[in-house]
């Protein structure tokens, strides 16, 4: 157990350490760093976090994080609306966007199906995905879910549901090691994956 001489530090450390990938030691270092800066520094940081939490919205069309009711990707007329890429989280959208290889639009599921973890199709954005069909624009749905059994199950399940709409379905090429999450795949791999996607039967 770490001993703090100050209750205030203890509290701050306990909160910061709740963030993923941050242990008590790192949390303490961050807290002490904040104390070394001018007060406005912390003020600005705290306000940015609060605004992020309070004002962020989810795109009504694709469920990606957004500043407006419809996200900048869905609004962008330059995007290719014949391609729809299905991902698990907004983080995946950001990863794919940073490759600058993909010009289509997205649908963010907000999770993948896993009964063990209590996540059923109703808990993620599957209905809203299906409600985008039949679509005069979308010609192909690309699944870019993680290369895990849960990812496969979700892809397979949605593919079944898409059958009546006769839309082309593909998955990104598995340059990604089995068991790893999409967010860990480096950018080159991910960009290549989207180009080298394979049709799904």
């Amino acid at each position: 157990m770490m001993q703090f001489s100050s209750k205030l530090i203890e509290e701050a450390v306990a909160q910061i350490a709740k963030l993923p990938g941050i242990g008590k030691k790192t949390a303490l270092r961050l807290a002490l760093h904040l104390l070394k800066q001018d007060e406005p520094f912390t003020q600005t940081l705290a306000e940015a976090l609060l605004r992020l939490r309070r004002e962020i919205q989810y795109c009504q069309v694709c469920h990606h994080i957004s500043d407006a009711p419809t996200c900048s990707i869905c609004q962008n007329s330059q995007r290719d609306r014949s391609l729809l890429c299905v991902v698990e989280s907004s983080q995946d959208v950001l990863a794919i966007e940073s490759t600058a290889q993909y010009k289509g639009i997205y649908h963010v599921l907000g999770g993948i199906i896993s009964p063990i973890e209590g996540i059923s199709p109703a808990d993620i954005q599957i209905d809203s995905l299906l409600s985008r069909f039949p679509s005069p624009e979308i010609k192909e749905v690309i699944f870019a879910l993680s290369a895990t059994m849960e990812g496969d199950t979700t892809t397979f399940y949605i593919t079944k549901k898409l059958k009546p709409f006769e839309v082309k379905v593909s998955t990104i090429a598995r340059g990604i090691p089995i068991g790893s999450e999409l967010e860990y795949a480096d950018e080159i791999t991910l960009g290549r994956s989207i180009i080298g996607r394979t049709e799904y039967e």
Partner: protein
Amino acid sequence: MALLELSVVQFKNYAESRFQFDSGINCIVGDNGSGKTNLLDAIYYLAMTKSAFQAVDQQNIRQSDDFFRLEGVFEHEAQPFKIYCALQTGQKKIFKVENKPVERLSEHIGRVPLVLVKPDDSYQLNEGSEQRRAFFDHVMSQISQPYLNSLLRYNHALKQRNQLLKQFAEKHWVDHDLLTVYDQVLLTEGHSIAQARSEFMQTFEPVFVQFYRNIADKQEPISLTYASHFADPEFATAFKAARPKDLAMARTTQGIHKDDFGFALQGLPLKKFGSQGQQKSFAIALKLAQFEVLRQAKGEKPLLLLDDIFDKLDDKRIAKLMEMMASGTFGQVWMTDARPERSHKLLKKVTASKRFFYIRQGACEQVEQG
């Protein structure tokens, strides 16, 4: 395959010990509770990525400490290589081969072929069909990565499907499409697993029968049987037809998780009709057959860990085993015994090189070349 050196840090009752093993026989002696079995378990851990005795991984960490570390220098075709494993309280296990992290632990299975003979083998293998499946899965997984992968996928899908069935039962509602997704995995993987098991029995049975006859010193007609739902060519239909039953019972009633490996003596099930001695011969013959099929598949002798066999086997079977040891059937061997004099005496006729390790309270007190 050989294990030359082992370092054990804060694993079970060991504080910090280093061992240099003999390439022949390593005899681990010491009082009850001194740490003999724990030392075998450390070796098992580096080969199988987990303990053979302790299912709760964190409890392998020494009570007063917050991590354990195991390091072994192995040798494969005259090339030494290192296996490293560390586990810290509340963290993910770190497993490395030649300083490279092992991405998926399952990939490591089979790298170090190993056979462990433990005191409760006879009880376990004769009792439950689940334990017998586990035994064959353990052997086959060391031989075939595709088999292990199929098994992992099958078990995972089974767990998900059973959970789903439970949720449907609670909510009085069914999503048939989602069940079908899991059915597909179970049918595909189940099919290859059943086929692999059935093929494996073809190689395994004759080897097993030979060892049984040698150990029991009798020409008793012993046989192994393998029964699976998948034996039925129409099984996919039967599986689908069982869905209402699955929904009612809230679990998957058909599949390779119901397979049974049986053992029969003169056509009668051994569990019911075998004598104590026959059941013991049977368990040890299974383990020796494991040794032999692993040797054939890998082209090298597996490590052999014999825990407390002198206590559990009778003189006749011990004599048989010592005969095999003397004739060089095995490669590198570890055996534990609480009575050093007995081990010295029994190993006298064995000309292979021998080393005795005297264990006391989780530390090695003395090493003696014998």
